[in-house]
């Protein structure tokens, strides 16, 4: 998947600009889940490790690949699962609000 250095640089800069735009006004409660979500996306480094494993050789190369594979897989699998758990916790919030609705006008569970 070689595109040359300038091609890679073009993609890099455009993706940076997308990254700057993709986050807008995030409510503070979502800061940690969003950070965790972004953390799992950089688990894509696993794709790099798979490509790497196709050409390494020698004991040192294998040890490095093994370590990198373990690290990247932990990042990607753990990252998505923990983010999902955080957001699940988030979803449960409106339930206690609905269970106790004496102040019908006030809606603390901001469910936009």
């Amino acid at each position, binding site marked *: 998947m070689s595109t040359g250095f300038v091609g890679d640089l073009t*993609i890099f800069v455009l993706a940076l600009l997308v990254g700057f735009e993709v986050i807008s006004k995030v409510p503070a409660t979502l800061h940690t889940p969003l950070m965790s979500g972004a953390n799992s*996306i*950089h688990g*894509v480094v696993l794709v790099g490790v798979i490509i*790497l494993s196709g050409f390494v050789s020698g004991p040192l190369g*294998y040890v490095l690949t093994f370590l*990198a*594979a373990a*690290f990247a897989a*932990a990042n990607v699998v753990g990252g998505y699962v923990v983010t999902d758990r955080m957001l699940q916790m988030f979803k449960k919030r409106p339930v206690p609000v609905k269970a106790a609705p004496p102040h019908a006008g006030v809606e603390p569970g901001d469910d936009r």
Partner: protein
Amino acid sequence: MTLDDGVRVASLIGASAFVLGLHLMNSPATARRGNQLSAAGMTLAVVAVLVQVGHGGTMSATRWLVLLCGALLGAAAGLYSARAVAMTSMPQLVSLFNAVGGGAAALIAVADYQHHPQVSSGTGIASVLDVLIGCVTFSGSLIAAAKLQGYWSQPVSFPGSRLMSSVLALAAVAAGVWVIAGADNAWVLLIVALAATGLGIGMVLPIGGADMPVVISLLNAFTGTAVAMAGFVLSNATLTIAGALVGASGGILTKLMADAMNRSVVSIIAGGFGTGAVGLAAAP
């Protein structure tokens, strides 16, 4: 359509899923769906590249064994810890995942370099930056996780820590320039890695526990950038796109988090140097 084209299309869909997923995570109602979309994109990208290397004919039994054993072990550890962790300990777990992500990005550059140490200057710069940023995040995130866990929540600083950081930074830059100039020797890149590991520790240790969420978010953005650099090293667009995406959005998020705490990112990072001694003096 050749297999390579198919893999490229799958990677494109995966990268789009990352962007859309991250965007959906801006609002509570769609956040969970966004994360699931991003996970689906990740699965697609990983399966596509597995098929690609499988068909490439370069995978020997040993290579499959090394890759799959490592990945399964890591996946099991990640899955277990993500399921078992208490809700209150999630931020430090995210920091740990961030650490290993940065470590993996650095290892890619090291393994690639020790495989063929004669690099073009473009790849050389990317390798050095990958190792530098990846190792800073690796050690920095480990320290941040330990601080959140409450091992040392006070800022830690010792006499000469600033001098040590300067020496390490100088060593990393000097060795990095040597690699880019064509050192042709894997040990030189290892100096960059060791110096950067020390720098990461020196960067996070003086910062107080209360500022850790912002620091973790910043290190998260660093890892994204390191992954993008790994994309340059391997000439892989998927890594470059996803890494740059996380690098930029993580940077914005870091600023948002610091603003929410009425702090500035610069004062948190630099403040560690100023307030560290005071914090330590007040602590005992």
